[in-house]
């Protein structure tokens, strides 16, 4: 039911991204292609249909995937804010969602909140994840050279990004 606006919005976001974020000597990796668009869809397909309970979850998932594919590539906060504004406009225009940026900016999806979990789900509050991650770290340290890590917001975000790609 929301497939059409989501697809239209993704395409427009992609078009804007390739027009606005051009490769320059300092940002030579600002090259986007259609593969990136397909990565958004690939990411969305990691979530199982029964787990998508309503429109909010779906839109959240979509925005999460576009952020991972496009926004993580940007190198400074100016560009990231610009991208967020673009996404925000798209949300309002196509999906009629009046969300504030802070509502969805740090939302994460992943499949590691439950031990041995296979389902790709929206993760709870970042701070609630820390005990879970400490557990993983302990498991890791048991078989490998120990790492002494402190989990903070950025770190959890990066971790979740890597885990997302490895799961694909």
């Amino acid at each position: 039911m929301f497939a059409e606006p989501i697809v239209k919005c993704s395409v427009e976001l992609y078009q804007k991204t390739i027009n606005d974020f051009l490769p320059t000597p300092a940002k030579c990796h600002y090259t986007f292609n259609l593969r990136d668009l397909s990565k958004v869809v690939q990411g969305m397909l990691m979530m199982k249909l029964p787990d998508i309970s309503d429109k909010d979850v779906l839109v959240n998932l979509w925005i999460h995937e576009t952020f991972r594919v496009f926004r993580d590539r940007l190198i400074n906060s100016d560009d990231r804010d610009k991208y967020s504004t673009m996404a925000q406009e798209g949300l309002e225009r196509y999906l009629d969602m009046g969300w504030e940026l802070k509502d969805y900016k740090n939302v994460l999806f992943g499949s590691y909140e439950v031990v041995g979990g296979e389902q790709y789900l929206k993760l709870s509050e970042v701070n609630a994840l820390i005990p879970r991650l400490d557990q993983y770290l302990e498991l890791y340290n048991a078989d490998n050279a120990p790492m002494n890590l402190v989990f903070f917001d950025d770190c959890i975000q990066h971790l979740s990004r890597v885990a997302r790609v490895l799961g694909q």
Partner: protein
Amino acid sequence: MLVGVGGSGRRSMARLAAAMKEMKTFSIEITKSYKEKEFHEDIRGLLRRSAIDDEPQVFLFSDTQIVKESFLEDINNLLNSGEIPNLFPADEKIAICDEMSKKAQEAEQGDSRDQIYNFFVQKCRENLHICLAFSPVGDQFRNRCRQFPSIINCCTMDWYNPWPAEALYSVAHRQYAA
């Protein structure tokens, strides 16, 4: 592909994420005599493990491990097509096909030598993830991106920002609390 300055925790993140996904991490060890030959040897082992033993693997490679630019050429090929041309000599290719033939038949991928080898490549692509940890400092990163476009096109990129103050505080806090 993880881009950030040294010490921002790229490799730790990749290792831990791999452990969370129950995947094995492999990275090369540089010695004085490490050249293309040794690198190819390691890649061959890696591909064999991911296809023949059917183990999901993460290959962690950082820019300090680039002894020769040809390593990147190989990674570029691996990302693009899932194989490196002429990596396996003919006799080893035959050995691989023998080992893979049963699995290829189970998956109904045909039994001619080419089909089996394609199946091997396909398995590698399924099971092997490549994590590149690069530093954006200097011209090298730019030149490499230009010369080897696959490292950009075929990767999902994650750009690391400097650590926020909150993070530095929490690390200090942990250190002194202990």
